[in-house]
């Protein structure tokens, strides 16, 4: 799994100046008690780009995703998607506009099988209203299997979701988000929990799938190697603000970023393939 250039480098257009941003956040502010989770966030996400968000825990990265997907409402600021304001819409309405997300803690239907989880996502997209036809009708079963297969989950399709290991749960979680066929996908630490040895393969698969589907992606990531290889741009979060924004090549060499963000990453990998995380609390 050696570095051999970015996959899909040629396949996708680089974000160009002059194109309208797909997602645009302005002046987002949100404080929990005294903690400022968002303290004036301005960010544009361009169509087709892969934007990585890095930063220490508690910097407000997940909060940004939660605000964008309607789970949290900022106290000030605006968010627009595709030129339309989406602030104040419910998560459901936002999903309907084509914004998908995956979760830091996998949100699976634990008592359903993996296949049913994927099929439910397809049903959610294709229309739930058929109270008597089975969920696992041939068309949806085939599509669900195809989605799972892309993430290497096909052999686990018949297992109950709560029987999966952490890594597989994480993938299933992303697979469900992908099955919804969003135009913009927000991923919260997609590789945490995935065993170190498989990580690069998984990300490569993921990126390929997303590029093929022309999905714009924003992902929170702690692994700098992943960021360096797959992100078009990096946004560095610090105490509810964007401390730096730019291509990985420049941002990741910034001494301030190295010291404040990357420097505090433990030098060696944590046990059991879990990503290193501080015990800090948002």
């Amino acid at each position, binding site marked *: 799994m050696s570095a051999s250039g970015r996959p899909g480098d040629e396949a996708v257009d680089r974000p160009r100046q002059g194109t309208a941003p797909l997602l645009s956040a302005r002046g987002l502010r949100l404080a929990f008690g005294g903690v400022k989770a968002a303290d004036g966030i301005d960010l544009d996400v361009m169509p087709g780009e892969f934007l990585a968000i890095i930063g220490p825990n508690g910097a407000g990265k*997940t909060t940004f995703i*939660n605000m964008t997907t309607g*789970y949290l409402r900022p106290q000030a600021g605006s968010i627009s998607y595709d030129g339309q304001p989406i602030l104040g819409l419910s998560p459901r309405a936002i999903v309907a506009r084509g914004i998908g997300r995956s*979760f*830091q*803690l996998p*949100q699976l239907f634990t008592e359903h099988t993996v296949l049913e989880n994927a099929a439910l996502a397809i049903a959610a997209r294709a229309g739930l209203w058929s109270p008597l036809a089975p969920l696992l009708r041939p068309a949806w079963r085939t599509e669900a299997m195809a989605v799972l297969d892309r993430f290497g989950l096909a052999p686990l399709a018949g297992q109950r979701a709560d029987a999966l290991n952490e890594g597989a749960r994480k993938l299933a979680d992303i697979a469900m988000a992908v099955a919804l066929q969003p135009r913009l996908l927000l991923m919260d630490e997609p590789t945490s929990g995935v065993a170190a040895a498989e990580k690069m393969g998984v990300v490569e698969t993921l990126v390929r799938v997303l590029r093929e589907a022309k999905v714009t992606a924003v992902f929170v990531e702690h692994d700098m190697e992943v960021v360096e290889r797959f992100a078009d741009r990096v946004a560095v979060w610090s105490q509810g603000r964007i401390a730096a924004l730019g291509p990985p090549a420049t941002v990741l060499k910034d001494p301030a970023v190295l010291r404040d963000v990357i420097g505090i990453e433990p030098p060696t990998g944590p046990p059991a393939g879990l990503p290193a995380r501080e015990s800090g609390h948002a």
Partner: protein
Amino acid sequence: MADWLADNTLLLGLALLDGLAYAALVFMVAVGLNLVFGVLRIVNVAHGSLFAIGAYSAASLGLAFASAGLPPWAGYAALVLAAALVGAVLGPLVERLVLRRIYGQEEVLQLLVTFALFMILEDVQKLIWGVQPVSQDLPMKLLGTVDVPFGDDVIPFTIYQLFVLPGVALATLIGLAWFLRRTLTGRVIVAVTTDKEAAMAMGIDAARVTLLTFTFGAALAALGGALASPTTSLVPGIGAQTIVLSFAVVATAGLGQIEGAALTSLLIGLGRSVAVYFAPEFEVVVPYIIMVAVLLVRPQGLFGVLETRRV
């Protein structure tokens, strides 16, 4: 409206006094249920049976004391003693033998286990105390009555209902609040109520806390029954009626909130007595209407905290 108020001020005053005593009894039962729910996350249907058994035990003990020739004031000791006894015996028995086996299982199973206990205890209590009304009203009679002026007239109220019941309820509220906030054990209980996982992660012995809380809650239910016993006649079925009212209080109050339980009990007590005076047909539905109205405005209950799940 103003005219109506002017005409009925005196009556409203009486209704207020009546409502206080009733609210006190409701509070005593509901607060124990609320506490248990906060820690165990189990809606204990058998709480009503503990109330009934506490009441019967208090009456029996009081009658035994009286026939043993103890002085009349021993009747008050009987009330407290009976409650403590019921709590100390039945609490651990139920928690250890039954509830402990179903922690972490589905909510419906937990609820139904207590429903099963309720059915069993209903019959057990009938086997022990029979079906004829049992009463021991010495503690109420001993204190006599006090005349409350009402226009040119006076209305006698029993001192027991006018002062003792609300007094004990208030003392319980203050004592509980002090216990939960100022003592270590109390703080541990609050910690478990607020976030069980976190509390356990911090090394709190959850098994001990649940046992303690359940025993304590059972004793409170029994005390509620014991306090009610001098004012009423004990017959089969009192448990079923008590518990359903307590459910309404707990849901309205906000889970695990003792101040909420106090306020809700007061609302229900006053609402009920005002209804008895001015719209007796609605007396029975008042608690439920209050509950529905509160939950419409505050879905988490009066004092409840909205839980936002982290994703």
